[in-house]
C-alpha cells in the first residue's frame, strides 16, 4: 500500500499510550501486544494527536532534520504503514493525489 501525500492520519484511540523517559510505550489490548517507539517514532506519534496530512508530516520532519525529502518519505512510509497495520494509527482519509509530497 502506498501512502498518498494528502492521506489523513490520526492516532487510534484504542491503545493506551504513555511516556517513559521521552519515549512512547503503548498497550493495545485489541492486538494483544505492547509497543515501544524510539525518539523519532515518538515525534511522529505525537504529531498525529490531531488528524494530519501525511505529506505535511514528512515535510515538517525533513525541515526539522534537514533530511532529503524523498529518502525520508520512504522511511516514514514504512514506519507509518507498520503503525496502521498494528492498529495504532488510523487512516481517516486515504487521499487521492498521486504526486509525491
Amino acid at each position, binding site marked *: 500500500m502506498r501512502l498518498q501525500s494528502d492521506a489523513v492520519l490520526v492516532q487510534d484511540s484504542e491503545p493506551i499510550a504513555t511516556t*517513559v523517559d521521552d519515549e512512547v*510505550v503503548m498497550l493495545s489490548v485489541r492486538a494483544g501486544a505492547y509497543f515501544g517507539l524510539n525518539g523519532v517514532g515518538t515525534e511522529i506519534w505525537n504529531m498525529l494527536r490531531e488528524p494530519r496530512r501525511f505529506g505535511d508530516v514528512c515535510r515538517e520532519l525533513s525541515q526539522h532534520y534537514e533530511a532529503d525529502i524523498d529518502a525520508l518519505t520512504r522511511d516514514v512510509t514504512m514506519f507509518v504503514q507498520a503503525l496502521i497495520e498494528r492498529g495504532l494509527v488510523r487512516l481517516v482519509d486515504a487521499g487521492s493525489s498521486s504526486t509525491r509530497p
Partner: protein
Amino acid sequence: MQFFYDVHGLVLGSEFPLPELELRRRPAASAPDIRVSMGLLPAAPRRATDLPYVDAENGQALLRIPGAGRYLVSDGRELVVEPEADADFSYVRLFILGSALGLLCHQRGLFPLHASAVELAGEAVAFMGEPGQGKSTLAAHCLACAPARLVADDTLVVSFDRAGRPWAQPGLPNVKLWRDALGALGRGTDGLRPDRLRVDKFHLPIADRLVGSAVPLTRVYVLGHDADAGEGRIEPMAGASAAAALIAHTYRVEYLDAAERRRGHFVASARLAGRVSVRRLTRRRDLAAVQATAAAILADLQPALQGA
C-alpha cells in the same frame, strides 16, 4: 483465623499454619489484609490451559494446579483452597504462597516482579531474570559480602505510595539456592529444606537478615548471560526497553487478564520504569566469578549510595 503472618507488606491471616512464613510476634490490631482458609469450591469449567478460570462479575479467579488443588482468589482479599485428595500439604502450600498469592497481588493492584532483592544503605536493589539467571545467587552473595539485608527472593512485590514512589515489600524469609551456589557461599546442604519443585535446590533460611518493613526501590538489574561479557557488563536501559523488561519479568504476568489488571499494570510498568534505574547486567556463566560480579554491582551502586 488463628495464624497471622507478614508477607509482601500485607497481614495474612490463615486457618492453618504456613510454616514457610514467620509467625507475627503479636496478633494484628485490625483485620488481616488477606484471609486464607480451606473449603469446598464450586464446580467450574475445566480449562485446557493453565490460566485461571475467571468469574469477573464476582471479582473472582479460580486457579487449578494438578496434584495440588484448586484456589479461589477473590477481590485481592480472600484465598480459599480446596486440596486434591491425597495431595501433599506442603505442595498445596507452595501454590498458596506462590501462584495464588501472585494472582491476589495482581487483584490488589500491586506489582509483583520475578526478582530477588536486597537492601543496601536503605535502598532496595532488585535482580530480575529468567529462571537460572542467578537472581537468588547474586542476592545471597550481596548478603555475604556487604552489610545488606534480604528484601525478597524470587518474588518481589512492589507497591506505590500516594506520591507514586515505588516500595519493595519484604517477601518470604528464605533464599532458594542450588547446591553449587551454596557451595560458592561456603555452605553445605546439611539441615536445609530441599525445594519441592527442583532437585538439588535448597531453602536457606534467612529470617534474621530479612528487612522488617518496605524499602524504597531505586535500582533494578536485568540479568543475562553472554560468554564474552566477563564478570559483569552493566548498561543502562531507558524508556520503552526498561518498561518492556519490567512487563516481561512481572510475576505471573499471564494472570493479568484474570485479575483484570492488564491496563493498570501497563500504566504502572511505565511509571516504575520512570522511577527506578533499570540496568542490564550481562555476565559469563561461571559460579566462581559470582563474587566478582557482586563486587561489580556494589561498585556500580557506589555513586548512588554515596549520593543518598
